């Protein structure tokens, strides 16, 4: 009897996993096709040989190529995310720590989002201490800021976004507040898991991996990430990072963290899991 119940539970779990995987593959295919579309259109335009339209002014050519490059970068970012998930689950994602100023990281990432912010009608306010330094992995922190800020723009278009970066007694704190669609209470626990999104994939694009990867990176830094949100009011994500990476505590995330940390000189202070 109990074996039967257990089998049914396992069967249900396996079915659920297959369903999540299939849904993910369908979303991933959609996401990869979206930047391919303008890329394809631009190339077709360049290749089209229509009478009287053979010459392309160098300036126009440059503009088209820049747009193509932008799509290539979008594809690259998507593929990086997919690879990160694969790296995290196979334990091949490493942190390369160095002295990093979180304020600088946030300013850099915000600068890269300038165009998107203005297209979305979001005004960005950044409040920060002069510097917030720690022994962190700069590129991974850029990813953290990119993922959270990207979501804030995506789900909070037309509304302001506030970022605070400050020193704490233990290290640094990053706070990103949006006034967008917000997240339901029951979805709050789900959003840091793999392939999970609080919104319908019909409405919003995205792989459903950003916050999962973000959580894994923050965990690897021995930090914490939390979210407070109210539907229709907005969300605030708070990341706290200890100044120095010490022994990595076991992660409490769904699959456990499988990250390895490497200092700049190549030694490995710690390998988890």
């Amino acid at each position: 009897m109990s074996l039967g119940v257990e089998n049914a539970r396992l069967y249900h779990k396996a079915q659920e996993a297959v369903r999540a995987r299939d849904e993910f593959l369908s979303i991933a295919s959609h996401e990869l096709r979206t930047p391919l579309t303008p890329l394809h259109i631009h190339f077709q335009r360049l290749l089209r040989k229509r009478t009287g339209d053979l010459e392309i002014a160098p300036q126009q050519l440059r503009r088209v190529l820049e747009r193509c490059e932008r799509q290539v970068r979008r594809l690259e970012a998507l593929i990086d995310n997919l690879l990160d998930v694969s790296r995290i689950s196979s334990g091949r994602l490493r942190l390369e720590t160095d002295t990093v100023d979180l304020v600088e990281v946030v300013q850099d990432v915000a600068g890269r989002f300038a165009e998107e912010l203005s297209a979305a009608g979001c005004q960005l306010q950044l409040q920060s201490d002069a510097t917030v330094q720690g022994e962190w992995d700069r590129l991974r922190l850029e990813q953290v800021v990119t993922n959270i800020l990207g979501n804030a723009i995506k789900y909070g278009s037309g509304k302001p976004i506030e970022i605070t970066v400050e020193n704490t007694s233990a290290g640094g704190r990053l706070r990103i507040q949006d006034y967008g669609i917000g997240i339901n209470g029951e979805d709050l626990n789900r959003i840091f898991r793999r392939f999970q999104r609080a919104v319908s994939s019909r409405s919003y694009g995205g792989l459903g991996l950003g916050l999962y990867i973000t959580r894994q990176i923050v965990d690897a830094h021995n930090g914490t990430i939390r979210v407070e949100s109210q539907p229709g009011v907005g969300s605030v994500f708070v990341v706290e990072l200890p100044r120095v990476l010490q022994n990595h505590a076991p992660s409490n995330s769904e699959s456990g963290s499988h990250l390895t940390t490497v200092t700049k000189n190549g030694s490995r202070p710690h390998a988890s899991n």
Partner: protein
Amino acid sequence: MPATEILLVEDDRDVREALAEVLEQEGYLVSVARNGRDAVQHLKQARQMPAAILLDLMMPVMDGWEFWSIQRSTADWCQIPVVIVSADAEAAERMAPHARPALACLRKPIDIDELLGILETVGCGDQGGGGGGGRSVSPTPALPDAK
């Protein structure tokens, strides 16, 4: 003769820009909407109906499915031919049997010549004669392979 108007409903800015440029280069007048709600708004305010609508499906605020159902059930709009342009092949396939008055379901990334060819069959192409809500559309729309 005034340029034939196409309403392009697409949330991705890069896709929107690329499609709009191609269509404008072909002599169309392109109006853009970032989601279904914008498109409804556009149609409500339009003095003349577009000759065709290019419709993405997965969009925030109001997705393409919802827009399409509103459009089909609104007397002044239901005759406007719709070309679905989606990266979701399954959705495009699922829609094909119910596609009337949708003209075609194209999967992203799309082929420009195919799109332009389809627009010409609705009479929005070089032959002219489009506009007026696309009422000259053939009642048996061509449904190219959705794959």
